[in-house]
């Protein structure tokens, strides 16, 4: 399959899932009325549902999915490790911690920007910590261990903050932050998160050639003319800003950044640079599909999207283990 064909197929899949996401929901609206209402025609309630409830949800599903796929691909390219992803490395959990602290200390009441900024600070700190813990050796064991350490700490601190909050609902919200949810997000959330995600995307895409150069290691990359320090900054900043923005409005959605690049890598000839766009489109499609599934499986109940991505991710890990075992002599 050529690269162009792959990108075309993934784009089509994403567009299709976007439309489906607009048409699924507890308000029983048929296709024609839904689409008309989307553009402002028809009964007022339907317009409200389409423009203020379904549209922001679909936009966020698409952009957050793209962010997670792209971040996973960039992290895997930079760390030269196919198990890197914002969830496994504890970056999402740290972003959640930053967001929770901004929200529950009341900083977010002063400025709505405090929420994504808090998440970003959390994400940056986690990436710096992981690198410090794992050192320049980015072999699997030390990297995963660092990620688990950072992620565990962030989760624990989040639960503590929520338990200590005077607000009685706070301790129940841990589920949102750990599993993620797109329900009842508004265009305000879109306006808050999408600019940050877009900035992150720009930084990550700029690292593309550097990631190719890193295929044979940091030294060879250097001698191929790449500025490895600059690649690192781009990846760190890009992931922190994009994942921070995404997590601040939707909580921590796991496994997308791990599974999507892994599946698409053979289809892009293993090129790290090509994997970036493909993973963005694949991630967007996956999260949109998961969000549709969440609404179709149990329409009355509020199933968190992270449950579905975990249902995909956990078997994926099992398969990875089996594959690794088969390769061992």
């Amino acid at each position, binding site marked *: 399959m050529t690269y162009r064909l792959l990108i075309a197929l993934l784009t089509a899949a994403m567009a299709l899932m976007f439309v489906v996401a607009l048409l699924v929901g507890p308000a029983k609206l048929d296709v024609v009325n839904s689409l008309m209402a989307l553009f402002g025609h028809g009964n007022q309630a339907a317009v409200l549902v389409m423009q203020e409830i379904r549209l922001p949800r679909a936009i966020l599903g698409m952009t957050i999915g793209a962010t997670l796929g792209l971040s996973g691909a960039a992290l895997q390219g930079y760390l030269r490790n196919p198990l890197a992803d914002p969830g496994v490395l504890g970056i999402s959990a740290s972003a959640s911690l930053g967001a929770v602290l901004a929200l529950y200390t009341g900083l977010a009441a002063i400025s709505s920007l405090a929420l994504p900024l808090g998440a970003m600070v959390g994400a940056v700190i986690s990436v710096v910590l992981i690198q410090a813990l794992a050192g320049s050796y980015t072999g699997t064991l030390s990297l995963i261990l660092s990620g688990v350490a950072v992620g565990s700490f962030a989760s624990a601190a989040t639960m503590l903050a929520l338990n200590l909050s005077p607000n009685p609902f706070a301790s129940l919200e841990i589920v949102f932050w750990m599993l993620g949810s797109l329900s009842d997000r508004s265009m305000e959330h879109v306006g808050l998160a999408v600019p940050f995600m877009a900035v992150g995307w720009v930084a990550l895409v700029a690292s593309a050639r550097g990631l190719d*150069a890193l295929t044979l290691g940091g030294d060879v990359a250097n001698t191929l003319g790449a500025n490895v320090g600059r690649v690192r900054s781009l990846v760190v900043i890009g992931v922190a800003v994009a994942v921070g923005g995404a997590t601040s409005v939707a909580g921590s959605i796991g496994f997308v950044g791990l599974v999507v690049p892994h599946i698409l890598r053979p289809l892009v000839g293993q090129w790290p640079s090509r994997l970036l766009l493909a993973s963005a489109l694949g991630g967007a499609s996956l999260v949109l599909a998961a969000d549709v599934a969440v609404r179709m499986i149990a329409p009355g109940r509020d199933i968190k999207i992270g449950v579905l991505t975990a249902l995909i991710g956990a078997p994926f890990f099992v398969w990875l283990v089996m594959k690794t075992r088969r390769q061992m002599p």
Partner: protein
Amino acid sequence: MTVLQFDNVSVRFASRTILDRIGLEIASGEVVGVIGPNGAGKTTLIKAGLGLWPATGEIRLDGRPFGELSRRERARLVAYVPQERDVVWEMAVASLVSLGRLPYGSSLRAGGADRAVVAQAMNDMDIADFGERTVSELSVGERARVLMARALAQDTPLLLADEPASGLDPEHQIRLLALLRRRAGKGQAIVVTLHDLQAAARWCDRLILMQQGRIVADGPPLAVLTEARIAEVYNCAAFVGADDRGPIIIPTGLADPEA
């Protein structure tokens, strides 16, 4: 033509002197072997020549001081083959070799000129048929040639390779070094570090012998690797001779077991 010049170059790290006032010149068309005991500074010499280790003194590539060159210019002047042979992604051989074109623009938008260089590099390393195979399917010796081809695809006047023959069986070792010799014949300057004295003597035009960060000898193989020198630097007794194909140098035992 001089492609690499070291002028009073030293490398210090953690209050240890790893390279001590090195001076040397490498010219196009020669295969130079850098030899010496473990810890003599061979790898550091290579890395200093690539700018991977900070060094005092002056290093010139193609006559131009290191500091004046941009990353890209440097990447077009010297290519590197490290000792480590891990490739993390299961790329096709042709893709891997084409990584060498990165300093010339994106290797993905490979134009006709890029493809020609890649094909030539693969020919030079005798892997022209390997294009669609993945690295993990290859033997160690074949993998070594693939990684070398990547450096050749960079089309630089100078190639620095750190222990390219280590871990290879005699056939693959000889194949690799012979192919490098052939390539040097077309004008490229090639510097390799080696442990195997026989391979170094047979396949290099010139040897640089290092000990404790200094160059102790520099010249044709038989001039550098005398029995006395081998005993002094390697603490080995050796048989030094020649046949009609070239030198024969075989360590036979320890020179001084008590040392």
